[in-house]
């Protein structure tokens, strides 16, 4: 606490005009900042060696119905202590301009464009003001997250063309890939500029299937939106629903019983297991080495069938609920999980040694798609990708949630940042997840698994929540509205921050290695495109 105080004092000493909001103290430090000071303060937070602030989330709120302002919020994680610092500012009246922090902090680039598209607020000084989510055929002035934009409005079409960055010169040509792909892949467009096979530039053009998830949240009550959160990114059901539930539980001041928290950790690890197993196999398959793909596919299926037997859902839907979990497990079921994982771990260890001794595979994976630690840090990359590039961060250890404060999480990091490092992080985490499940099965206490909600929050109260899903940090901000409705729900899947980093990881690689690099990032298009 004293340490925390010293960060806050240092910040206030450096910027006397900022005001600390003590209401949130304890969970994080919250400062109200005049908008003109934003670039200076964020720059200070980001670059000061003792703070080392990593941009975690930027969101806007349309508060005009209440107080005629737009709120802008910047959440930083201080690396030494994992403490959160939140900076807030307001745009009053007709003010639609705010200073861009992207020139100092790369990681803000998509957040600011997102705010521009969704709210019509303009980040002044942003180096790239092209539309991000609102593709060019969206009509002018359509900003869906403004409160006066009806959620069921059907958009018209206008003519428009997206302008890619071009590299010109002899022998340089562009390769457009997607948004329609040959396999069962979501929609995304990749524009390569290549000189022969080596990639000189990659530009992503995503956001083809905007579902309006955040707008849909605003049509829900705080107590009814869990199924929506489960479907933000289908492969991360537990991660997203848990992050949402935790935010709402802090709004309701609910304390989830210990058994419920243990079960949440257990299901989160099961989700991590089946996804990591699938990814390890898929990475091998993209090098045409199909044997591990077949075995990983089988093991993934075993875990999904286990999920089905335990909860009635292969994807663990309906497990999390407000106040705890909806599924309790018997001692027999816990023993079944451990026995099944023991069988799978034996097979997986054997497969690991086969993979490790296959020179032709290792040759494909090593030095391919290197994301340096510096680039990863600059783009605030999270999760598996960050840990493979040497960023030692894992919310299960750094900001424990569910039952992780009582579990020993060993965080896996590698320094090399190549495809192999990303695969090894996953392979090591598979063992670690299995170990954690066993630890849960031993330590889990008896008792209730959920509590019922009491009185709801006042309109305007809000809460933050973060969960280390299998891809990485999932962050939710939920703000209560009138009569139990949601005023604003900001969802951030790890894919949203990790996608841009691919553009740097592929540089200097050859174009046939791109699918492998992309697979090793294993990002969600849906979680990215809300």
């Amino acid at each position, binding site marked *: 606490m004293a340490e925390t105080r010293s960060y806050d004092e240092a910040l206030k000493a450096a910027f006397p005009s900022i005001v600390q909001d003590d209401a949130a103290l304890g969970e994080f430090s919250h400062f109200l900042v005049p908008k003109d000071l934003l670039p200076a303060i964020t720059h200070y937070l980001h670059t000061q060696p003792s703070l080392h602030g990593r941009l975690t989330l930027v969101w806007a709120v349309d508060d005009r119905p209440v107080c005629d302002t737009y709120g802008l919020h910047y959440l930083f994680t201080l690396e030494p202590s994992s403490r959160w610092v939140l900076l807030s500012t307001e745009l009053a009246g007709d003010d639609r301009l705010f200073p861009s922090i992207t020139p100092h902090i790369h990681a803000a680039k998509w957040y600011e464009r997102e705010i521009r598209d969704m709210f019509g607020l303009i980040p002044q000084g942003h180096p790239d003001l092209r539309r991000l989510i609102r593709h060019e055929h969206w009509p002018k002035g359509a900003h869906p997250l403004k409160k006066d934009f009806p959620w069921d409005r059907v958009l018209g079409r206008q003519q428009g063309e997206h302008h890619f960055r071009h590299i010109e010169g002899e022998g340089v*040509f*562009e*390769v*457009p*890939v997607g948004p329609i*792909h*040959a*396999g069962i892949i979501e929609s995304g467009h990749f524009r390569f500029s290549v000189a*022969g*096979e080596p990639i000189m530039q990659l530009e992503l053009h995503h956001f083809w299937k905007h579902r309006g998830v955040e707008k849909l949240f605003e049509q829900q009550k705080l107590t009814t939106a869990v199924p929506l959160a489960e479907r933000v990114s289908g492969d991360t059901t537990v991660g997203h629903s848990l992050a949402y539930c935790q935010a709402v539980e802090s709004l309701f001041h609910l304390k989830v019983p210990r058994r419920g928290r243990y079960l949440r950790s257990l299901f989160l690890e099961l989700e991590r297991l089946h996804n990591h197993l699938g990814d390890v196999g898929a990475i*091998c398959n*993209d*090098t*045409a*080495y*199909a*044997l591990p*793909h*077949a*075995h990983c596919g*089988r093991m993934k299926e075993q875990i999904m069938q286990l999920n089905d037997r335990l909860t009635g859902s292969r994807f663990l839907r309906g497990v999390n609920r407000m106040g705890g979990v909806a599924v309790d497990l018997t001692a027999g079921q816990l023993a079944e999980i451990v026995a099944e994982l023991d069988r799978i771990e034996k097979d997986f260890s054997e497969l690991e040694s086969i993979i490790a001794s*296959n020179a*032709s*595979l290792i*040759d*494909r994976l090593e030095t391919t798609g290197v994301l340096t630690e510096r680039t990863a840090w600059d783009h605030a990359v999270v999760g598996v990708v960050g840990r493979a590039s040497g960023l030692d961060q894992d919310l299960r250890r750094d900001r424990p949630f569910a039952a992780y404060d009582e579990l020993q999480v060993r965080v896996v990091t590698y320094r090399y940042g190549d495809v192999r490092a990303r695969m090894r992080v996953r392979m090591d985490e598979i063992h670690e997840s299995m170990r954690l499940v066993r630890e849960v099965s031993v330590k889990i206490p008896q008792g209730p698994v959920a509590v019922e909600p009491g009185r709801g929050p006042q309109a305007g109260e809000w809460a933050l929540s973060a969960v280390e899903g299998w891809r990485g940090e999932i962050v939710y901000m939920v703000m209560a509205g009138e009569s139990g409705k949601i005023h604003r729900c900001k969802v951030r899947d790890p894919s949203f921050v990790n996608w841009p980093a691919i553009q740097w990881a592929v540089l200097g690689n*050859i*174009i*046939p*290695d*791109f*699918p492998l690099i992309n697979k090793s990032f294993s990002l969600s298009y849906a979680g990215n495109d809300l």
Partner: protein
Amino acid sequence: MLQAIFLVVAQTIVLLAVSPFIVGLIKKVKARLQLRRGASVFQPYADLAKLFRKEPVVSTTTSWIFTATPYIVFASTLAAGLLVPIFVSRTPLNFAGNIIAVVYLLALGTFFLMLAGLDAGSAFGGMGSSREAIVASLTEPAMILSIFAIALTKGSTNLSTIVHKTALLEGIVTDPSPYLMALAALFIVAIAETGRVPVDNPATHLELTMIHEAMVLEYSGRYLALIEWAAGLKLAVFLSLIANIFAPWGIATTLAPAAMGIGLVAYLLKIAGLAMLIGVIECMFAKLRLFRVTDLLGVAFILALLGLLFFYILRS
């Protein structure tokens, strides 16, 4: 005359009938090794039948090259197949050409495929063509040299003569090293030319990594059927070359019905064995990085060259 016509017809039927089976067998072996049940080995026949019934979709930006290519590829590959001994050591088109004709008939098909890949104007086709050009230009010398190493021991570039003499154990060099080197070289060439792992992956859906599949990405319907069938034929031609040059035993050296029957059975067994070997190899290796393919083909070239030199050393 009647014999010649009979041979042409018989060999054409055998080649056309066997080639989808080879493709199906490789897939089956791969599936079994990957714990999958896999489709029936006869699935490729059904696929071809389906494709022939389907309407081809042709891009409006293509020229005559696009529609002519499937026929050229199919015809040139089949012609090459008729120059290679299959189950009778005498080839049907014996008079028309030797091993060099086989190499360049196959190259003709490859050349038109590369043109067709460019013709549709899609980015993937162009990439496939450019990659195929690298692979084809490097496999050609290795292939020629490896067969020359054998041809020298028999004193002929005529495949019938080579196979006939080997089958009758004439002109065999007692030290096997030139044969082994030429065999290894020709096998690598076969893998590269037919687009198998570790050079290319026929099973992938990732357009950016494809070589052969990228060139034919625009094809559909009967055009695709012809191209797929031609790809199977090419595989059959290469496997027949390997089987009959290096292990021609069992092949019919006369046109007696009994000899031909034995020849056919022996041929099918040899081809099935080689196809299974390819299936096993595809399960053991990851695909090479594109620029490492040149190293592999360099190895094939050196092996073929060494085989040739060894022959001279052993003879003197």
